[in-house]
């Protein structure tokens, strides 16, 4: 089981590295959307620093949407998913490893990049750690929802994925931005972190099995 998971992990790493568009396009998208807000709203540092946590969270959420089609689609199209489901091996490890690698390639670069909002959107620098922590805890949940949406909408229109992910991710968006704004108001944000962590732990097995069920649908 662990050996198999390790092999899938390396295989996924290689295939992601070869398709650089899958992790470069979310980064480009993130930077552009961040740049849109000052252009459209205002370039006043006071306004921007007030809006910065929310803008960052929305941009992260939207740019992770770009990659959810990639989680299962390529394996579905070249038939390796087909082989995997006909073998008597654990599909759970496949799903978990795929979600993990997708998170590493699509969310992690954006989280690192989002520390630039200190300069771009004048986020108060002392709250940067809080923002990054909230992103680190919150984005795995969004990846889970993304995997479910990707599994349900395999080979379907790509608008279906966002329509499923966005309403499901509302609690994470609310908790993530609340963590930063409560810190800026001088409160302790740990409540929001614990809440997001609880949601993640609660949803991890549930969504993984839902993903397996959704993938099975395409082979019935």
């Amino acid at each position, binding site marked *: 089981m662990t050996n198999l998971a390790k092999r899938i992990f390396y295989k996924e790493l290689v295939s992601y590295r070869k398709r650089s568009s899958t992790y470069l396009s979310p980064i480009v998208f993130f930077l552009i959307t961040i740049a849109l807000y000052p252009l459209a709203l205002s370039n006043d540092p006071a306004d921007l620093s007030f809006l910065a946590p929310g803008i960052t969270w929305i941009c992260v959420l939207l740019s992770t949407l770009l990659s959810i089609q990639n989680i299962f689609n390529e394996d579905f199209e070249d038939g390796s998913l087909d082989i995997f489901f006909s073998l008597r091996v654990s599909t759970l490890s496949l799903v978990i490893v795929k979600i993990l690698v997708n998170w590493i390639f699509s969310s992690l670069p954006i989280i690192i990049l989002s520390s630039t909002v200190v300069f771009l959107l004048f986020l108060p620098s002392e709250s940067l750690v809080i923002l990054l922590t909230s992103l680190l805890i919150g984005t795995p949940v969004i990846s889970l929802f993304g995997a*479910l949406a990707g599994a*349900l*909408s395999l080979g*379907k*229109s790509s608008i*279906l994925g966002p*329509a*499923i992910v*966005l*309403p*499901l991710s*509302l*609690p994470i968006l*609310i*908790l993530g931005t*609340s963590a930063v*704004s*409560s810190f800026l108001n001088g409160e302790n944000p740990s409540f929001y972190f614990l*809440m997001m962590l609880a*949601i993640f732990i609660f*949803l991890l097995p*549930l*969504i993984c099995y*839902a993903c397996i*069920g*959704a993938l099975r*649908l*395409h082979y*019935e």
Partner: protein
Amino acid sequence: MNKTFNNLKTFYHKLGSSPWFYKISGITIPYVALFSFLFLSIGIVWGVFFSPTDFKQGDVYRIIYMHVPAASVSQAIYYTMTVAAVVSMIWRMKMAGIFIKSMAPIGASFTFLALISGSIWGQPTWGTWWIWDARLTSTLVLFIFYIAIISLYSSFSEKKSADQAVSILTLVGAVNLPIIKKSVDWWNTLHQPASIKFTQSSSISPEMLYPLIISIFGFYLVVLLSGLMAMRAEIAKREINKEWFKNY
């Protein structure tokens, strides 16, 4: 005790058979239609013409006889769809899939009705069509869930996998809806304290309450009626080439 259980079990098994359902629903639909018409007309007419005028809101409040039943029905439909999703996941009962498929558009319409009637009510009483209140936001999210379920269903060409996919999404949504509701509550208290109490005061006078209860009952009957008709139509659509349907 054992006998009642057996009767229940046979009833449950019969419920899974589409010819039986088609026959029974054909018999019951006229009665349900009659009763829903009766209850709805009594509730609405009593509420709109004969109940006393509210001393604070005036006659505007009478939209309550439309708004509260629609809001209550819109949530109840999602709960029944969740039960059907569990049945469909565990026993692969095809009637459960037909139920979810037929109820989702009905639920979406009643949620839409609740949102629209609420905003028509809000304009004269609060002076605004929309407010980012916790309840309004979670109703909007419920509406989006219904739309997502409908669009996911329509994206599958194979009915069997469409049923399963929709069941998975309904279940995940049912697990998430309480989380969304709770987090919207927190968000609301953080950003803006609820300036307008949306909850009806429990001291509603009986002359207003009775027509409300009757019209809520009428709305549930309308949902039952439209659900039965939609399920019949769906059965006819799926089994048009089956032997029993040709001989019906």
